[in-house]
């Protein structure tokens, strides 16, 4: 018997560990690309300041990368430890992109990052640049394969259920990787990483400009980051629009929730600019509507119907009723895979198998044969995700995207006019912008994953069935463990990140020809040594460097 509390705790654990992991991933995705661009400028122009910039941003990258790797380990194992039914059910398809991610991308990224950090003296400039590019390529390819896997959960393409092995099996690898959802989400997510890195670099550079430190590095970084940021933010918004368009076909319930559309409106449907959704009453307590806007915004036409929540729920009642015989037949096939009558029955109802599974939760003894109409109605209600949360989280994400776009546009203007230092209010604002892309990324995850509920694999496998059959005490134990460890980690990480930023870039001595200058400005290696004098020396060195 499946325990509701265990399922709920498993969901909380997965969501919190995934959201935590996703705090570090976007910055790595974007910063590696940004650093590769910096190093390209260094190799092309030979100007040592670009080398210093490359090394400084690499230092911050590494602090972030360590936690990204560490928390990524959790994700790789959590499907098996906590979602074992899911893993057995779709592992034939879902496992492949994860394994390929390791083979093709993560291995390269992790091997090369060691050389990127330690190889400055051992590699030629060209070799080092290639290594840096491979790190950036590796992290972005990682994102591709992870999102191919996620794309399958959102819109399962290229697979079919095999009643003999009782699981989903891969039919077409190309359908899996070229799923529209996966492709659009890959570009959307990786570019969101570029936006994150651009805001991060701009914010840290703004801090230096306000403090009048490392001005050369800060100004150049800022200019590159804002240009990078404008382009990336436009990309994120465009691909976000494409995702909505794709979702309208693949996941109507998610789209209806994102737009708080309770009933099917006559086309072209109005757009709820702001609303207060009430799930129990299935209506908006109040709504600020713009007539006719939603249909063209979402479907890019004036007359495509967008189904409302009530209609989706009613359709799903029919699908659940049709799915119950599929589950019953499957039970017979499990004992005897060659039972011809059971196979015929299964084939006739196969397309609604997942909907049949949905009612297990409410049926007596969790046996679908005993499901009543009331149970079916409850299961159908489940097919509508949490409208209020999705509606608002989605809206705030979009608002953040436009806020960042405006921020970058001003940044580019000031930067090109070369009077950025005359705008201290803007610079201060730039520092406060740093958390915004991180929050936006988290909200994107929530929209995508909460919006997919009640499914882990859309239309095929309910979340409620997917969890491992642990005891509540095991789940409490693991949840406490993750929360305590991760809290300690984030404190150490933030401390080191802030400290590294305050320390600033390494200052090189002697003729900066891009050669193998030894750095002496960081005394971090002296055990028990004090930082204050070292820091002061770094600042003095910078002063003298400027005078030269």
């Amino acid at each position, binding site marked *: 018997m499946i325990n509701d509390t265990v399922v709920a705790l498993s969901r909380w654990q997965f969501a919190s560990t995934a959201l935590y992991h996703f705090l570090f991933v976007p910055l790595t995705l974007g910063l590696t690309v940004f650093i590769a661009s910096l190093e390209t400028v260094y190799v092309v122009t030979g100007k040592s300041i670009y080398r210093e910039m490359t090394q400084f941003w690499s230092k911050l990258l*590494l602090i972030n990368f*360590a936690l990204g*790797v*560490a*928390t990524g380990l*959790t994700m*790789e*194992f959590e499907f*098996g*430890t*906590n979602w*074992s*039914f899911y*893993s*057995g059910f*779709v*592992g*034939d398809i879902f*496992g*492949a992109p*994860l*394994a*390929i991610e*390791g*083979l*093709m991308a*993560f*291995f*390269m990224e*992790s*091997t090369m*990052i*060691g*050389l990127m*950090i*330690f190889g400055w003296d*051992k590699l030629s400039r060209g070799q080092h640049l290639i290594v840096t590019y491979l790190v950036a390529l590796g992290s972005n390819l990682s994102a591709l394969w992870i999102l191919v896997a996620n794309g399958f959960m959102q819109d399962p393409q290229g697979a079919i259920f095999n009643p003999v092995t*009782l*699981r989903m*099996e891969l039919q077409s*690898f190309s359908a899996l990787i070229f799923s529209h959802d996966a492709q659009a989400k890959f570009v959307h997510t990786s570019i969101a990483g570029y936006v994150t890195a651009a805001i991060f670099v701009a914010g840290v550079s703004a801090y230096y400009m306000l403090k009048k430190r490392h001005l050369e590095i800060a100004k150049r970084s800022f200019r590159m980051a804002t240009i990078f940021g404008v382009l990336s933010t436009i990309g994120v918004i465009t691909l976000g629009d494409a995702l909505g368009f794709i979702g309208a076909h693949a996941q109507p319930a998610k789209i209806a929730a994102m737009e708080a559309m309770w009933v099917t409106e006559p086309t072209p449907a109005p757009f709820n600019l702001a609303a207060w959704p009430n799930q129990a009453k299935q209506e908006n307590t109040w709504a600020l509507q713009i007539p006719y806007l939603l249909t063209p915004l979402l479907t890019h036409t004036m007359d495509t119907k967008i189904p409302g929540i009530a209609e989706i729920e009613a359709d799903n009642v029919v699908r659940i009723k049709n799915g119950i015989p599929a589950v019953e037949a*499957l039970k017979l096939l*499990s*004992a005897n*895979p060659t039972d011809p009558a059971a196979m015929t029955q299964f084939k006739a109802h196969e397309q609604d198998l997942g909907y049949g599974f949905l009612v297990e939760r409410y049926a007596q003894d969790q046996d679908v044969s005993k499901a009543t109409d009331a149970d079916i109605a409850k299961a159908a209600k489940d097919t509508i995700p949490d409208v209020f949360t999705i509606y608002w989280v989605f809206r705030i994400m979009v608002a953040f995207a436009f806020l960042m776009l405006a921020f970058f546009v001003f940044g580019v203007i000031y930067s090109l006019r070369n009077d950025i230092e005359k705008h201290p209010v803007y610079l201060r604002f730039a520092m406060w912008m740093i958390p915004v892309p991180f929050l936006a990324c988290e909200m994107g995850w929530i929209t995508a994953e909460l919006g997919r509920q009640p499914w882990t694999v859309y239309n095929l496998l309910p979340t409620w069935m997917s969890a491992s*059959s*642990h005891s509540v005490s*095991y789940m409490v*134990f693991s949840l406490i463990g993750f929360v305590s*460890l991760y809290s300690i980690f984030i404190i*150490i990480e933030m401390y*080191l990140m802030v400290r*590294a930023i305050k320390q600033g870039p390494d200052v090189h001595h002697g003729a900066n020809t891009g050669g193998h200058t*030894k*750095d002496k400005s960081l005394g971090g*290696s*002296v*055990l*028990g*040594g004090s930082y204050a004098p070292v820091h002061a020396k770094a600042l003095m060195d910078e002063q003298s460097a400027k005078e030269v």
Partner: protein
Amino acid sequence: MDLYLGLKVLWWLLLGVLLLGLAVMVGMDMGVGALLRIIGKTDLERRSMLNAIGPHWDGNQVWFILGGGAIFAAFPLIYATAFSGLYVVMLLLLWSMIMRPLAFEYRSKIPTETWRNIADWVFLLSGALPMIIYGAAMGNMLQGVPFHFDWDLRSHYTGSFISLFNPFAILAGVLSLALALYMGATMMVIKTEGALAERARTAGSIAIVAAIALFAAGGVWVSLMPGFILVHSVDPALAQTPLTQTVEQVAGGLLANYRGYPILWLVPVTGFFGMIVGGLLLRAHRPATAWWFGIFAWAGVLGATAVSLFPFLMPSSSNPSQSLTIWNSISSQTTLLWMTGFTVVFVPLILWYTSWAFYVMRGKVDASKIENDPHAY
């Protein structure tokens, strides 16, 4: 031979290659971590040890991640059943593993003694514990694990967490730790100098002697343990579930394959050969060659386990007929074909650039440079 059957056997072998890569590369770094406080007496010595593997540990750790991913892709039911069944153990493994990257990246960034001591203890814990669990997990597979399935293949583990640390499993865990210490110590002899390298040599020698004794003891123990025999099942070449077979437990069953094919005795012999020759080479000041013989040692130990179990991967002690075998826990033919394609292209590539990375960073660690390099661990 039937294509699907061929792929099943191929992926069983590839699973072995993967577990071997994991044991060798991750095990080496774990060994270094566990030895950090034992053979590294000063902070500089410890930093020399960390910097010796510093440029590579990140890449090596991917063997662990790839291990998870490849088992998921090729043996989804093993991934699902083993990882959820051994829940608490897997979490301990995971938690100790995720503390390690942070200890690496952050240890030398804060120059206080307390902080670095904490980091060193983290290295000890996150080096020793995962290797013990890795070995103990193998030990439990040999004995069988209490689990069963519902009609829809929902798995239920019915044992306790403590029962996973039974005497045989602990022996297997300590063997795994000993081999990891040997590999780590050998690498330290290669990469460091002076008194530190000498202490590493001593540690490596002790570890390999322990490993030989433990492997021998484990072998005797295995010969006395009951094993599992497939009495009735669907043709291995066909797609199947663990719900349609009959399995029995018989005395001495873990040696059945060796009795059937005596040439298989070469597998454990390879293990002893690797350990003995490796140990002698280490004494004879040939640490690089000794390290390579460590791979034979690992291959022999993992291979002997696999031969004993074949065709089982994870037998059920509480419901033997629902045991997981190669035939019933593996992915579909299409998935295996695609995975084979990617493996054929990328594994040689990985081995090539990993070797290149080691080549670029070749030579002893220069202790004097560590103090001046802000990026040093």
